């Protein structure tokens, strides 16, 4: 299949167009790329992730990715993010969302949902007597002998 771009003729459907008069001098599309990719040398020093940081992050993220692969991905993501500092943002307000000038919709205080225990529990991997089940937390409640004196 060898289709050529078919924009040669623009079928003008029933409208007289002053082609001659509006003849353009040149296309508005720039012929060359107008910017280049970021020059690495302009960026601050690459961040190296130390063991404490990755352990800390792992505890916060719980994805079991504190290995070499995870660290290198993270460092690459940070390096990429460092490009942001080539932009001058003095005096610019951060933008949370495009709805920042809108206001929050409020609903009436009526009971409209709930009371669907079976539906709620249906997707749970383990259920005991209508409760969800978790292992004990990492900080068990202390036993009697462990009081501070």
């Amino acid at each position: 299949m060898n289709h050529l771009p078919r924009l040669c003729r623009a079928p003008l459907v029933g409208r007289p167009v002053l082609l001659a008069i509006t003849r353009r001098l040149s296309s508005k599309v720039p012929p060359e790329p107008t910017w280049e990719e970021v020059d690495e040398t302009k960026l601050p020093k690459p961040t190296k992730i130390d063991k404490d940081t990755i352990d800390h992050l792992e505890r916060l993220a719980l994805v079991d990715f504190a290995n070499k692969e995870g660290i290198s991905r993270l460092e690459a993501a940070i390096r990429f993010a460092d490009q942001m500092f080539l932009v001058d943002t003095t005096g610019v307000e951060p933008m949370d969302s495009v709805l920042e000038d809108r206001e929050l919709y409020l609903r009436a205080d009526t009971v409209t949902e709930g009371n669907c225990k079976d539906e709620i529990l249906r997707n749970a991997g383990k259920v005991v007597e209508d409760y969800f089940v978790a292992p004990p937390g990492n900080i068990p409640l202390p036993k009697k002998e462990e009081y501070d004196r």
Partner: protein
Amino acid sequence: MASSAHKFCVERILLSCRRSLRTCSRSYAKAKTKKDHTSPLPGGWQGRVGLEIHAQISSNSKLFSGSQVQFSAPPNTLVSPLDASLPGTLPVLNRRCVEAGVLTALALNCHINRRSLFDRKHYFYADLPAGYQITQQRLPLAVNGHMTFDVYDESRSQRQVLKSCQVRIKQLQLEQDSGKSLHDQENGEVLVDLNRAGVALMEIVTEPDMVDGAEAAAMVKELQLILQALGTCDGNMSEGSMRVDANISVSRSNEELGTRAEVKNINSAKFVQKAIEYEMQRQIRVLEGAGEVEEETRYFDWKAGKTISLRDKEQRHDYRYMPEPNLPPLIVYTDATSPRGMQDSVVNIDRIREQMPELPDTTRRRLVEKYGIQFQHSVALVGEGLVEYFETLIDVKGKGRDPRSAASWVLTDLLEQLHKRSLTFQECSVTASKLGEIVDLVGMGTISKSTGKKSVVLYKAHMLQLTCPTKYIFCWIFSQILGLLFDGDNRSLSQIIEENEWAQIRDEETLGRICDDILEKHTELVEAYRKGNVKVVNRLMGEVQKATNRCAEPTVTSRVLKLKLEEH
């Protein structure tokens, strides 16, 4: 029977004596001590306490979902897909919760932010299904308020005011409650119930302006009363609808604050004081032993009365706050800014302020001014939630019973019966009007008569039209009847009195005076008797019965009457 009843009567009299001394119309000046506000701890240590109070908003449905809010329900029956954090669900804010937050903030003299924002606070926990809580960290609903409260001396039964305090309210914000975890020790599992997940909370954060446990406890109690008066939270700490975390530190100087520890799991105002006192002592011991207080979270073990370190290795928890992207800014309006045609669907601060109910402080003063009761009674009535009961009992529009006695009946006898039966006021089966009936029947009005140096209370019995210091008998009868009613006796009051023969006056001295009275009024009958007309005795008896409304015991009365007749 007579002797044991008599003995019992005497005991009751003594008890009532003590009580009536208390409820005497001696007025106690409000004792404002000149105690220094900054140094209640020994050894020159200054304590500082700030509180974070989580108050569950009384609303029909949750903060961001339409699930019902109810204290006790079968597990996971009050849970919607959003509460269970099923993927794709989105929060929608409940207007009533915003109104409750605004009303509470106004009562706490806060500045309401016209525009406030929601954020996510991230941490992993079994009862937090989304892995984050929606709260207001950057720009909360209200800031910069203050609250005044009195600290009472509870050591003596009279509620003497020790000092008046003010605490600054740093902010008030709306946030979600988490679910509940139950620890199944046997199976080494945690069972999670999400009924409470997503219920609306107001978090009220104070500055560390309090200096000890007593101040903090008093603040908490006053806040409970305020929230109950507003109807925004029932303030029930034992059920968990209000929870208090305390941030406690000690230091040598008043300017610099020491390292603070946070104490959680305090579920009554009494424990607020205990936990803080323990923790301050603990910190002092550590510092005096040349140690350092760790900035950590501790857990109050109420059975042992101690705070325990949670030994969380990750002491500095990074919550990674992030703006909640699913909730645009919350805007509240005033009359001036309210958009036309939308009055019903927006939250208007001015309208809410207009609907502000009477706050406890105002109530306490009003009761004193309006009814002339003593200040500490007013404090007790407000503190125990008995104001409406009291005002119904006084029945201003109807019979109009004496407020001061009414206060006394409510605060002593009624509360005593409740306490004896371990009932809460909510469970009280005797209504104010029923109590009023007893009051009327047994009869209490008071006349205060000063005779020289001492005020003597003279009680006039409406029914018996006697002036005698046998009010104690009536106290006894009163509490007997009340006890029977609490026990479920549903005879009419007159039946009770009659069947117990309490209305019968047997006391010879009393009867003697009644007879004297009658004889003086009916001298012609006395004359007749002297002349030998014995039938007159019957007539005189009739008069005595009329005067005592048939309460004079016949045998004794007859004897006394005859004696008196001899005398006259």
